């Protein structure tokens, strides 16, 4: 790797560089398979670098390596990590302990697992100050503790500090973890997807806190995420990782305006756009895992730009402008193509309501209980023929409960009327007539749990066929091939097991299983929340296409308001067990009436519209 520190913009002199990573290579221990290779990053004082990558890109492995920590089975094979000129990787255990939580600190993805459940949060926060010998006296430390709590907008009174982690909400726990990370005024802070488990409103608060703290303390921050939209308002610069390598680095505006690497461009296009101007475009295929990466440039199989050379040689780092780096043989051609490759305008005619359609499922004044507690209150809504209704809400809003009530999978008490085709639906799917069970199909959130790991894809797909139809072996085979084709999978998968498939493929199989029943209504419960953004976009494209072509009625449950325009015509926004707003997608998103919808809209991270100018 050539030295790159001198290449920084003239406004930020070299001495401002706080964290420097050079030529980092991390491998799996006995096999020597590389997880990450040739990773070089530079972060300056007060700067936030967004490290963006999909699953298996090796981004978290890079993040923890900055603290010289590797998960079991991985080890650092080459490279340097320097904080203010101090080499972290060559430190002894004692020096390393002093640095961790001192000069460099870490905020994990799941703070509920990072906080000790048996200790009060005040004790844990004080501990980190004591261990690193912050301040001269206990009084000074206590003052710092109060200050820390104020910084993350939490109360610092005795009552609050005496709480245990489980007595805090997810957002509060994450704030405590952030307070802990900032406690000793570190030089570098590593944030590993700290908002992934949080609702959008909580996420917006946490992101604000992180931004303020890094700016005011001049901390160099590495923010690891799979979601470009999240870092779009936070990061100064962005490094995009793919298959263990940094493929492009640049300022946020440079990257959003014109990515020089095809992956950057495609990743941007796969992010749902809340303004509804752009159509969602998935990236075919999925990111390869370590040990399965192709030779040459790893993105080649998914790339429209690939030429022969891409299969053979991995492209070197090139610098189109100071501080901007890219690894692609064809970056010069990619970089100038702005408008027509990435920006596909959404076909707005799809959401226009041409004729009044018949109601398929109507829900009238429904209340549902969890044991004795009422969790849905007076829900009235309906699903029309050939239309898609998006049900949007944060966790705990009752959106999944409502979907499960309709599907006959809510095991507790339900009052009110749920009708299908004018006839009342039994509460439990088992008590519904076969034709009804066939007509309403449910796709589950996690494709890792909804497919039986002990069955082949063929066995899984044959289940609805056996229950609903009387088919011969050959007919069955033919049907299975047909539904696999509908979800763009090859029939060779029939003999595979779920664990041989990627997450996106598994979700396609789950959709195919629903389609095999030849349903009228498809209920999709957060079907993309476990998938990478590029795969999510492809699944959304698939579902939207199927819904149109097959004339399905669809209930699309999601927490992501930005997805709504890409798939549905109507939207119902839920909060605390009630529908707070209902209407056509464009009407609701452009002119929201309910306060809750407005808040949700403003908190949903979006990419700045820098692409629009081209």
């Amino acid at each position, binding site marked *: 790797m050539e030295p790159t520190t001198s290449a920084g913009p003239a406004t930020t002199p070299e001495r401002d560089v706080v964290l420097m990573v050079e030529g980092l290579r991390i491998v799996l221990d006995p096999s020597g398979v590389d997880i990450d290779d040739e990773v070089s990053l530079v972060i300056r004082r007060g700067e936030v670098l967004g490290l963006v990558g999909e699953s298996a890109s090796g981004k978290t492995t890079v993040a923890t390596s900055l603290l010289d920590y590797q998960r079991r*089975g991985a080890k650092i094979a080459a490279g340097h990590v320097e904080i203010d000129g101090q080499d972290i990787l060559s430190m002894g255990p004692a020096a390393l302990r002093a640095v961790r939580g001192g000069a460099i600190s870490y905020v994990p993805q799941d703070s509920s697992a990072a906080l000790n459940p048996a200790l009060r949060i005040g004790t844990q926060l004080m501990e980190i100050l004591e261990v690193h010998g912050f301040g001269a006296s206990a009084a000074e430390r206590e003052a710092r503790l109060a200050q820390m709590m104020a910084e993350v907008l939490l109360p610092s009174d005795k009552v609050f500090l005496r709480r245990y982690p489980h007595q805090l909400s997810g957002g509060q726990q994450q704030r405590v973890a952030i307070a802990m990370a900032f406690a000793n005024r570190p030089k570098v802070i590593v944030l590993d997807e700290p908002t992934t488990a949080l609702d959008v409103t909580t996420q917006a608060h946490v992101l604000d806190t992180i931004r303020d703290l890094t700016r005011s303390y001049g901390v160099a921050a590495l923010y690891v995420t799979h979601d470009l939209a999240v870092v779009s308002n936070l990061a100064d610069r962005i490094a995009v990782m793919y298959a263990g390598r940094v493929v492009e680095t640049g300022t946020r505006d440079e990257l959003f305006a014109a990515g020089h690497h095809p992956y950057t461009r495609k990743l941007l296009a796969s992010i749902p756009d809340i303004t509804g101007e752009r159509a969602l475009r*998935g990236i075919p295929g999925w990111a*390869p*895992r370590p040990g399965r990466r192709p030779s040459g440039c790893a993105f080649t199989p998914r790339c429209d730009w690939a030429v022969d050379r891409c299969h053979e040689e991995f492209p070197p780092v090139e610098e189109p402008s100071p501080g901007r780096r890219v690894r692609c043989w064809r970056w010069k051609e990619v970089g100038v193509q702005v408008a027509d490759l990435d920006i596909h305008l959404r076909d707005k005619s799809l959401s226009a309501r041409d004729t009044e359609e018949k109601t398929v499922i109507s829900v009238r004044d429904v209340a549902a209980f969890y044991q004795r507690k009422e969790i849905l209150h007076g829900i009235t809504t309906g699903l029309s023929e050939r239309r898609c209704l998006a049900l949007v809400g944060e966790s705990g809003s009752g959106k999944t409960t409502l979907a499960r009530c309709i599907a006959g999978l809510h095991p507790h008490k339900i009052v009110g009327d749920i009708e299908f085709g004018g006839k009342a639906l039994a509460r439990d799917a088992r008590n519904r007539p076969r034709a009804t069970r066939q007509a309403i199909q449910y796709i589950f959130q996690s494709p890792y*749990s*909804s497919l*039986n790991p*002990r*069955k082949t894809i063929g066995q899984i797909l044959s289940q609805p066929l056996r229950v609903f139809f009387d088919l011969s072996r050959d007919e069955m085979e033919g049907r299975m091939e047909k539904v696999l084709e509908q979800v763009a999978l090859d029939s060779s998968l029939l003999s595979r097991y779920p664990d041989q498939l990627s997450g996106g493929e598994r979700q396609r199989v789950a959709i195919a299983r629903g389609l095999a029943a030849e349903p009228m209504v498809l209920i999709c419960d957060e079907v993309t929340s476990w998938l990478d953004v590029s795969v999510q976009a492809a699944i959304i494209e698939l579902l939207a296409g199927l819904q149109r072509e097959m004339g399905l009625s669809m209930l699309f449950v999601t927490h992501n308001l930005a997805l709504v325009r890409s798939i549905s015509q109507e939207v119902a926004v839920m909060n605390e067990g009630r529908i707070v707003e209902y209407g056509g997608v464009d009407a609701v998103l452009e002119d929201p009436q309910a306060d809750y919808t407005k808040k949700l809209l403003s908190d949903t991270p979006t990419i700045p519209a820098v692409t629009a100018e081209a």
Partner: protein
Amino acid sequence: MNDEIIVSDSELVEPAVVHADRRRSEWLMTIREAWRMGRTKIGVGIFAFIVLLAIVGPWIAPYSPTEFVAPPFSPADIPKMWLGSDYIGHDVLTRVLYGGRTVILLSLAATVIGLGLGVTLGLITGYARRWIDESVMRILDVVLAFPQIVLTLLFVSIVGPKLWLIVLMVGISHAPRIARVARAATLEVAQRDFVHAAEAFGVARTKILFNEIMPSITSPLLVEFGLRLTYSIGLIAALSFLGFGMQPPAADWGLMINENRIGIVIQPWPVFVPVLLIGILTIGTNLIADGLGRALIGIERDTGVG
């Protein structure tokens, strides 16, 4: 949309750790993992040795087990009588070689009965929940309250010392413990979405139990089988010793211990050798169960799945 790459790839939690068949046959995986441990190899070695002894024993035995070859309690006389004679003058070595079959066969049969009964009860209670779960588990608690040998003796004293009864009762006395393990595993699996998916299709409950849930709980049951086999061997041998198992003049290790204990001071072999063999047999099965158990814990830790 239609250009999804078709050739598949595995998406494991840990990259490049290649256990492609981890999910589809966990029990096979458990066995493979267990086999890597020294304790399992020793256990299997011991078990195989004793089983081999029991199988080929009758063919290599020098005499008939009911043949009188010497005065009672004659000392060892190599090479004519390696282990001497027993309380009525049978050759001890011959009876040892004949006496293993019954212990092993009866224990296996009892364990299989216990496993079948326990797994069925565990699946039903774990899946049905509510009152079925409550009532069945309370009845099992009552069974569990009796020590296994007391329960068996109770029924044997009512019906009489019948072999089938002993096997059945040992099996029944295992059932509550196996049912608990099966129930716990079922409770967890029954909450997974693929079970809900089958319910939504309207698949019959028995099919859900045996086709959907059962394949996912085989590993803990495998460990349980090994453990219960150990207990069965001890129980069957103990019942024979107490005179409720095989009846004289049959050759049986448990019975031999009882028959010859009066002469232990002058002729220890007919007591000592069966005790030793039963002891190492249980050590062998226990080592196997232990290896399987450790393998299971290891797999759960590595994959984060049960």
